[in-house]
């Protein structure tokens, strides 16, 4: 299913496009003007002449796309005119500086959700419900088997897991941008004040979070720890790509765990070869997706990513909404968070 050719938002080879605003949303290729929902690599790509994003995400974007990019920062909720359209960014609760983008023109409004979640997260602003006529939503975890427990509760289990192994290093694998900082913020909220060691990829994201005022425990890059200093009882956070890489040679008999929404399923836990899997996600779970669709009041829904077919069918048949998957166009995109689970991220033929 492709978006209507004369609609406010259209699908072009570069990605979602709004002719009225002469702007693309999270384009896949370099374009003249890009509206960015958030800084993950599958949403923010380099090479565009002009970027628009929320101020809270500016630090991360400049760091990832280059300090010299032309970037217009806007505040959450601030309405700006772009060509013939009104554009506003609204908090998505996904990661620091993440946004849903609302575009209206000619009496019609569209909301592009980007990635979002409804759960509490001390490392970023909470999701803001926004009304729109048409919604384009993600469905990364668009199955009713996915239902998240509160992040604080999962963090408490992670803390217990760490505390139970004072003799060995505890290696926690989590996405470097977003998940890692959320975990650190949750640990701080649980009273953790001791230093946590970080892989370089996680370290790179710490400055934007600290300058945004997120309360975090002290951290240090692992590389700055003197050689020979014991790692027993230390918590180390690294991106999943570091698992079984030469980087791990430094650890003698560590315990390992992976934090991801995919860990809700036993088979996925066993397949990945981590000793523990903690199910925690920065995406909406099934109930979160349905609630968001309801909150927007949209009569027309387009679904991208993950189980886009299934969510669209459910909305159509069980909720009586006009809903279609935009699956094909969004398939095969390497998601920064989904990189480890290409199989699950792409489920449409």
């Amino acid at each position, binding site marked *: 299913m492709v978006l209507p050719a004369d609609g406010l938002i259209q699908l072009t080879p570069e990605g979602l496009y709004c002719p009225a605003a002469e702007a693309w949303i999270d384009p896949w290729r370099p374009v003249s003007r890009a509206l960015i929902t958030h800084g993950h690599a599958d949403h923010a790509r380099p090479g565009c002449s002009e970027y628009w994003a929320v101020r809270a995400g500016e630090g991360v974007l400049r760091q990832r796309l280059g300090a010299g990019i032309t970037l217009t920062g806007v505040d959450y909720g601030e309405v700006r005119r772009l060509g013939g359209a009104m554009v506003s960014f609204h908090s998505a609760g996904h990661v620091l500086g993440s946004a849903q983008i609302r575009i209206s023109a000619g009496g019609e409004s569209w909301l592009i959700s980007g990635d979002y979640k409804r759960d509490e997260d001390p490392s970023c602003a909470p999701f803001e419900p926004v009304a729109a006529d048409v919604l384009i939503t993600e469905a990364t975890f668009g*199955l*009713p*088997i*996915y*239902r998240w427990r509160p992040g604080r509760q999962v963090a408490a289990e992670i803390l217990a897991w760490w505390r139970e192994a004072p003799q060995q290093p505890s290696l926690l694998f989590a996405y470097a941008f977003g998940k890692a900082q959320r975990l650190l913020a949750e640990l701080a909220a649980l009273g953790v004040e001791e230093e946590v060691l970080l892989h370089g990829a996680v370290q790179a994201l710490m400055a934007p979070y600290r300058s945004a005022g997120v309360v975090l425990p002290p951290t240090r890059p692992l590389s700055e720890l003197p050689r020979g200093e014991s790692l027993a009882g230390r918590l180390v956070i690294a991106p999943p790509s570091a698992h079984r890489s030469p980087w791990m040679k430094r650890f003698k008999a560590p*315990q390992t765990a992976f934090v991801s929404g995919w860990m*809700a*399923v*036993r*088979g*996925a*836990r*066993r*397949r990945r070869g981590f*000793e*523990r899997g903690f199910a925690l996600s920065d995406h909406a779970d*099934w109930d979160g997706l349905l609630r968001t669709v309801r909150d927007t009041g949209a009569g027309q829904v387009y679904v991208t990513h993950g*189980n886009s077919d*299934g969510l669209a*069918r*459910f909305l159509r*048949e*069980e909720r009586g909404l006009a809903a279609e998957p935009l699956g094909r166009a969004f*398939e*095969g995109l390497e998601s920064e968070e989904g990189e480890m689970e*290409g*199989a*699950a991220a*792409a*489920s449409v*033929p």
Partner: protein
Amino acid sequence: MQAFADLIQQLERAAGTRSRVDALANHLEAVGPADGAWALALLLGKRKRRLITGRRLRQICLERSGLPEWLFESCHAQVGDSAETIALLLPQLSLPPAPPLELPLAEWMEHRLPALAVLEAEAQAEAVLATWAALPDGQCFLFNKLLTGGFRVGVAAGLVTRALAQVSGLEEAELAHRLMGGFEPSAAAMEALLAPLEADATAPISRPYPFCLASPLEAERLAASDPAGWQVEWKWDGIRAQLIRRSGQTFLWSRGEELINASFPELEPVAELLEPGTVLDGELTVWPAQATQPAGFGPLQRRLGRQKPGAALLRECPAAFVAYDLLEKGGQDLRPDPLSQRRAALEDLVRRLPETASTPAAGLLRLSPLLPLGCWDDLEALRQQARSVGAEGLMLKALDSAYGVGRRRGLWWKHKLEPMELDVVLLYAQAGSGRRANLHTDYTFGLWDGDGRLVTFAKAYSGLDNSEITELDRWIRRHTTERFGPVRAVDPLQVFTLGFEGLQRSSRHRSGLAVRFPRILRWRRDRTPESADSLSSALALLVTSAR
């Protein structure tokens, strides 16, 4: 049941063998004999009875949740397991809160679950829903598994016996032996299992010995030894079995510890000729009395699983027991003796049989012949003859070795023939289950027929490494042409070399051929689909493999 649920979780999480064995031993000690017996039976996979079908459980879940069935199917495809899918969907059922329910595992297995199973439709649904509401998260999955009979834990039997040894102070081999021939869980059975040696007077007369198993040949290790120290035999292409004659009764056990007397009634007369307290290790084959070699695996397959074979089948596919070894003589365990002595005793036993045997017993008990081997250089030529005598390769056993428990690398080697090979084209793929849920790992392959069409020929599940599986999975998703439920038809572009042990004609398969033990040997990225093999090349192999 919480203790057992915790154990399962510990086993899944524990990294090393040591901690898994410790977890098992701690659990067995902590829960006492009744729950321990059930834990043991479940861990060893000796309890697979289905009390409620997965379909019924799903129906109860769906009726309550109001979720459409197709959505359940999508969830199942992602999870790869019904019991777990249902457990994950329980929050969608908005069950009323109930006081937590904690009962011993034995209580569940012996009373609660069987009682649920016999309830009528509506009462059953209500009872299941009430149980779900009362069980903590981790136990719902276990409850579903135990109810639907699909419980399996990834823990090797060897680890379980090691834990039992740790708990009881007995040898692992002794415990493996005591566990043979079925374990009916009860506190008494558990106590008997762990009883000190002298107290174990209650061994059932049917109890088989643990089979000694061979490892694939490591030629370098063998070359360093003297050929004269080895017994060389054909590796017969049947099923491994143990024939027991004790106290006037006969017990024929398969390697899977199934009692199969009833399927092979013709062996009874010859078993009756054995002196009391005799146990033979051997191969069950279909081997007509006058034939010089067995009839192959196909005819044997017709006999397996047939509880009471008819007269015609008995005539067409007569069975024979080919003896490899003598494990017990006059009630005495010969396993510690060197193979050379056991073999001499076996030959003596078989030699004396025909003198007393009446004609119907002739050819029913055969001695696996010894093969002469002067030097290691002759080994290959010998192996190449295997197919022509109806064997699948060679066995090499150290003459001075005792009969071990399980696979003890270095004493017994198997040296099978190279598999037959064909280059085939991937046609369909289906997601696996468990660890492979949501990964396409079940493949169907085709060969070219005379009209330039690809005909399905074989299925294979294994042979690729993890990175190849992931890569192929991506490829399959991008090249799906059609979907039939969980099965995807793909562009016929990928070629694989398929290895298999044998071929036979089959009217049930579209290609007219059935393959034995197919597995992927190589992913042939260098090959185009046009260069794949045809049905006629498969038929040519059929001719060479038929004798």
